[in-house]
């Protein structure tokens, strides 16, 4: 297995996964979405809320705020030494006390631990008019996207097969496929159609070019053929800001490795027993 990045910054990564299989690619995608833990607000104590939003709506909005997570500092509540009581090792506490008229932003959440703060400062939470007040204490815990989407570290996270476009000798360069292609990846060169250099990855495997080719009256078989390479994948991973993308990828791979080690161990135990 091999990974090459074509783009990598804190929020977006685009990479190619090579010498792999469809099942691994999907396991990898699912691990990134559902198995990488992040912090999100789970419990809210509302001391005073005279805003137009109900407590429930307010806390729902608070829960959706991405919170920067340092996975070395926090453990899951279930596996914490406090036995689920909630301590500094498993819970990040925030306080908020705002009086109107103003718009309450995520920056008004004052974190107890400065490393666990809202990833974006300017998320509007509620608009307050004169004499409206909001006093809140919120607790964020570590969990995974399996339990609730607010713990998902990724926004758009997906892959597609690597496209393989082959153009046979039959091609007469009529250009119908060039016009039809929604991603503009084809061009006519002399009497033949070819893929514009470096744009193969843009292909969405829609096969409109194949249909256009048949429609041009070339015969039973189209001259252009779009297939996919079953061992190569193009991934796009986008982070919501709680974790850098690189860490999401690493954590997902660590998760897959641990789970497969577990499986090997369990199978070993079973076969010893018989």
């Amino acid at each position, binding site marked *: 297995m091999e990974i090459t990045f074509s783009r990598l910054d804190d929020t977006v990564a685009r990479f190619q996964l090579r010498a792999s299989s469809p099942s691994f690619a999907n396991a990898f995608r699912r691990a990134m979405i559902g198995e990488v833990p992040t912090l999100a607000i789970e419990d809210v104590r509302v001391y005073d809320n*005279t805003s*137009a*939003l109900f407590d429930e709506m307010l806390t729902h*909005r608070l829960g*959706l*705020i*991405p919170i920067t997570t340092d996975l070395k500092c926090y453990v899951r509540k279930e596996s914490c030494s406090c036995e689920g009581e909630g301590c500094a090792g498993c819970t990040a506490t925030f306080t908020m006390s705002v009086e109107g008229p103003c718009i309450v932003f995520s920056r008004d959440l004052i974190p107890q631990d400065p490393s666990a703060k809202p*990833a*974006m400062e*300017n*998320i*509007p*939470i*509620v*608009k307050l*008019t004169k004499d*409206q007040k909001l006093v809140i204490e919120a607790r964020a815990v570590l969990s995974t996207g399996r339990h609730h*989407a607010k713990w*998902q570290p*990724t*926004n*758009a996270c997906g892959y597609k097969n690597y496209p393989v476009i082959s153009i046979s000798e039959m091609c007469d360069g009529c250009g119908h496929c060039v016009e039809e292609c929604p991603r503009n990846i084809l061009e006519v060169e002399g009497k033949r159609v070819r893929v514009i250099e470096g744009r193969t990855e843009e292909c969405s495997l829609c096969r409109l070019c194949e249909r256009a080719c048949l429609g041009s009256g070339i015969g039973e078989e189209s001259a252009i053929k779009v297939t996919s390479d079953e061992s190569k994948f193009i991934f796009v991973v*986008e982070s*919501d*800001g709680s974790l850098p993308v690189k860490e999401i990828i690493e954590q997902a791979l660590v998760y897959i490795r641990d789970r497969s080690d577990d499986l090997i161990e369990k199978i070993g135990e079973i076969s010893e027993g018989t």
Partner: protein
Amino acid sequence: MIPVRCFTCGKVISPAYEEYKRRKEEGEDPKRILDDLGLERYCCRRMLLTHKEIIDDLNPYQ
């Protein structure tokens, strides 16, 4: 209030709303504003395009 995240993909879109509203009132083309704000997917774009702010109507009531 504008939803915090896009319903479909989960991207945090609410910080963009204030700027979107201001620029739209100035008469700018929504397409250009949304492109500027980095809202690429149509799921995120519809969140701003179709939002109706009612918090000011609700505010007089407790």
